[in-house]
């Protein structure tokens, strides 16, 4: 991270960087990328980081400002999950990811906007209003980590945390022209990360570059005794792996990723990016993922099923939104939840409740789990002959705010290339691959998704970094809004 270098050389201070980030955040309030700006907390953390930096060699993240997606619980700082349900919720504890970044003395400036309970692909499903894409404020930044992506793309912070359940890091990274990493399921602790779909949720990072993602992942990954699904496996030296040459690397290109529904501009940018990989010494291999078309239906059974149960705790009894003057227990439950949850959250709770109901469980939930195994099998077969799989992160560039909000199925289709990765629990990265010209004549970022076998984060970051060493798409910034 260039800023880290500047901090170590005393060209700047954590406090100065933090003040700059806070000012930039306020300056770009139009993006609506933050739910909570924590000036006091940020400046105090910056001061502590400056003290640490003055003493001895500090962590690579010491003094670097960043933002947390508002799904990570922060001790004493309101954590809303972008829901009216948690508008008043102040956690008494920190998420493990929050703990670890605090221990690294990175400086959190606030909590980023998102789709409510991470349910959405456009960041339009927020109680606090939609987030705008810094490349075109009439467009969505993607979701659900839309606030995180917009903050990084607008240059307000060099990185932000996010979560990815079906593409919620990679899709906004693609729409906003930045780099977003989804690690292997279990690599980063879920403790303190408000659950959407427990078997799919992965916490991680969005940043300008793969190198920055490597630094942050190194700080937040690792086994956590508080999360039974967290993996006991040593964390790799991701930064050290970045420099390896790509000669001989076999990259699988799945024909399914270039089927109907893909924009010509997106396809062209991705093909050009793949050509660049060939120049870097990699070999492209045609592969097939025959069950790819089943990923969306399976995902939209499993994720809502888990969500319907995970969100049952929001009942107005112990914390969160409670309706006024309930007439009965049932009234307390039904009105608190009717008032507290937004439309998309309700839709998924209903779908999920239905899928788990007696008489439907086998036909929906169990069948979706079988599909999940088929999809994992597709990837396993493909990885017998290739090291990585590449394709467009999304079939289109960022769409307009309101364009798909009336049509949930069209919205769900935006996740077509990302959800299969979550179902298989694999790591994947989205990196800026180029731009696609749209009708207005403007250009919007296109994301390239690379997928690796389980625990192949180092290989992903290495491949993305090598690409970024010979391209400048990740360095481009949207024109500042006048």
């Amino acid at each position: 991270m260039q800023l880290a270098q500047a901090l170590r050389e005393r060209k700047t201070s954590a406090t100065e960087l933090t003040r700059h980030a806070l000012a930039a955040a306020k300056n770009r309030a139009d993006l609506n990328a933050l739910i909570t700006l924590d000036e006091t907390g940020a400046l105090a953390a910056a001061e502590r980081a400056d003290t640490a930096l003055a003493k001895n060699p500090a962590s690579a993240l010491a003094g670097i400002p960043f933002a947390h997606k508002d799904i990570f619980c922060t001790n004493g700082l309101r954590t809303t999950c972008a829901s009216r349900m948690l508008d008043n919720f102040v956690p008494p504890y920190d998420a493990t990811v929050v703990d670890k970044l605090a221990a690294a003395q990175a400086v959190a400036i606030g909590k980023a906007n998102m789709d409510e309970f991470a349910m959405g692909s456009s960041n339009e499903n927020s109680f606090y209003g939609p987030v705008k894409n810094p490349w075109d404020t009439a467009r969505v930044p993607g979701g659900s980590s839309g606030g995180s992506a917009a903050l990084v793309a607008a240059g307000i912070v060099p990185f932000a945390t996010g979560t990815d359940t079906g593409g919620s890091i990679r899709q906004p990274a693609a729409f906003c022209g930045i780099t977003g990493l989804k690690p292997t399921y279990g690599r980063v602790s879920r403790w303190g990360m408000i659950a959407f779909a427990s078997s799919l949720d992965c916490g991680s990072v969005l940043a300008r570059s793969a190198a920055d993602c490597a630094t942050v992942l190194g700080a937040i990954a690792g086994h956590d005794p508080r999360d039974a699904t967290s993996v006991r496996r040593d964390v790799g030296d991701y930064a050290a792996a970045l420099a390896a040459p790509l000669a001989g690397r076999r990259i699988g290109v799945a024909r399914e990723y270039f089927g109907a529904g893909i924009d010509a501009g997106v396809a062209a940018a991705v093909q050009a990016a793949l050509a660049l990989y060939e120049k870097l010494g990699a070999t492209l291999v045609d592969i097939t993922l025959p069950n790819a078309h089943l990923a969306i239906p399976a995902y939209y059974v499993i994720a809502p099923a888990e969500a319907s149960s995970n969100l049952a705790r929001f009942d107005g009894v112990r914390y969160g939104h409670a309706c006024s003057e309930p007439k009965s227990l049932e009234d307390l439950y039904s009105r608190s939840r009717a008032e507290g949850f937004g439309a998309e959250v309700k839709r998924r709770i209903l779908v999920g409740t239905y899928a788990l109901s007696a008489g439907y469980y086998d036909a929906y939930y169990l069948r979706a789990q079988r599909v999940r195994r088929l999809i994992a099998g597709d990837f396993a077969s493909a990885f017998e002959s290739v090291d990585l799989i590449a394709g467009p992160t999304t079939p289109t560039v960022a769409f307009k705010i309101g364009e798909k909000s009336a049509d949930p199925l069209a919205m769900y289709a935006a996740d077509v290339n990302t959800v299969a990765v979550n179902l298989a629990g694999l790591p994947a990265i989205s990196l800026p691959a180029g731009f696609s010209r749209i009708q207005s004549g403007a250009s919007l970022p296109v994301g390239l998704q690379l997928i690796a076998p389980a625990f192949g984060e180092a290989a992903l970051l290495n491949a993305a970094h090598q690409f970024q060493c010979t391209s400048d798409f990740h360095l481009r910034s949207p024109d500042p809004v006048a």
Partner: protein
Amino acid sequence: MSAVAPAPITAYGAWQPVIGLEIHAQLSTVSKLFSGAATAYGAEPNTQASAVDVALPGTLPVPNHAALDRAIRFGLAVDARIATHSVFARKNYFYPDLPKGYQISQYELPIVAEGRLRVRLDDGRVIEVEIERAHLEEDAGKSLHDAFHAATGIDLNRAGTPLLEIVSKPVLYSAAEAVAYMRCVHTLVRWLGVCDGNMQEGSFRCDANVSVRPVTSATLGTRTEIKNVNSFRFVEKAIEYEIERQIRALENGETIVQETRLYDPTRHQTRPMRSKESANDYRYFPDPDLPPIAVSAEDIAAVRATMPELPEARRMRYIEALGLPESDATQLCADKATADYFEQVLSGSLPRRDADRAEAKVAANWVLGEVSAALNADGAHFEAARVGAPALAQLLARVREGVISGKTAKDVFAAMWAGEGDADAVIERRGLKQISDTGALAAAIEAVLAEYPPQLAEFRAGNEKLLQFFVGQVMKRTRGQANPQQLNALLREKLAPQ
């Protein structure tokens, strides 16, 4: 009438009751099933509820391995299959004392399956009860309906407490069989140390599934479930009431509704719960926060290595190896504290275990007699005996060695119970030691013989009855402390024709 009426096949004539029990045993772990909060009973409301128990957003369950070990321990004791792969599932329903909106339980793949337990009935019959499964689950909190005006309080201290739900097959055919089985499980879980068995505190409670069918029918009748009964007597009463209610209904041509019923202990009746509560669709599915529990052969072996001798095995050993009467063996094995106390007395007073059947019987008599009586007077149990097993063993050793007589030992025991010290101290202080010193005894005998020459002459002339006179005189002279056997032997020696 001269014809003898045929005996009824069951106590209910043409009807046969069929009962299955679901016993909830609270596992005696220090912390909860999925959080580090304490499980101790009786704390101020909500002081033992962690962020996990309150179900704050973002919290996650982590299984407590001490609870798994206890479940395996129970499974081994009932000769069950221990699943190498078992799964926690979510049982979804809304209730204010269920913070997550679901209970973590086990559904399709429980940790323990297909066990059996031999149960001794009061009438001497022994039945083998098949145990379908035993699974781990967390308890809910408590709703306090009476504590507040026009509101309900919630205490989450109990939320997340580990339970083992032990499900029998419907193979119990009377209230008496059901209660005998429940007692047997109660003894076993306490014996194994997996549950404290405290029924007042709700550590051991049971749901009973009851149906009746014509004795000629092989298919089960429609069952009702009686919820949450927490005493042996109430279980018996509730089942008896329910059997009679169902028979009455069927004989009146009514049909039995499958429903959940509550037992009212003041009226000794069962009544239906609101039907809504039994109409829940729990939407069970595997808990995605908890990977399947893998239990290896080594894990099972490790638990097996710590298994105590089971009550039935020990009972048989007492009968066969120690020669104790069945009734003694049964009483000694009623609970582990009693049996262990006896065992310690035995190993402390005998150089080799099982060495002497007579000594075992003496020890059993003491444990079931003097010690039990003293404990009853204290209202205490063997763990709290004021004379510990090693101390009693010492006392019995002194009797065996001839230091004191069996009769004196009872006085010594009473003094020990009263806190006067151990057997040797009491014997010493009170001067109760028998005179076994040949020299001292010989001197006393010489003195007596010298004092009563006429009697001596009479004896020598053939009046052997006078032996007892001399014994009495020596005893008087030694204030009762002469060792009787030794005295007899010495006296005969001295009186023998010279």
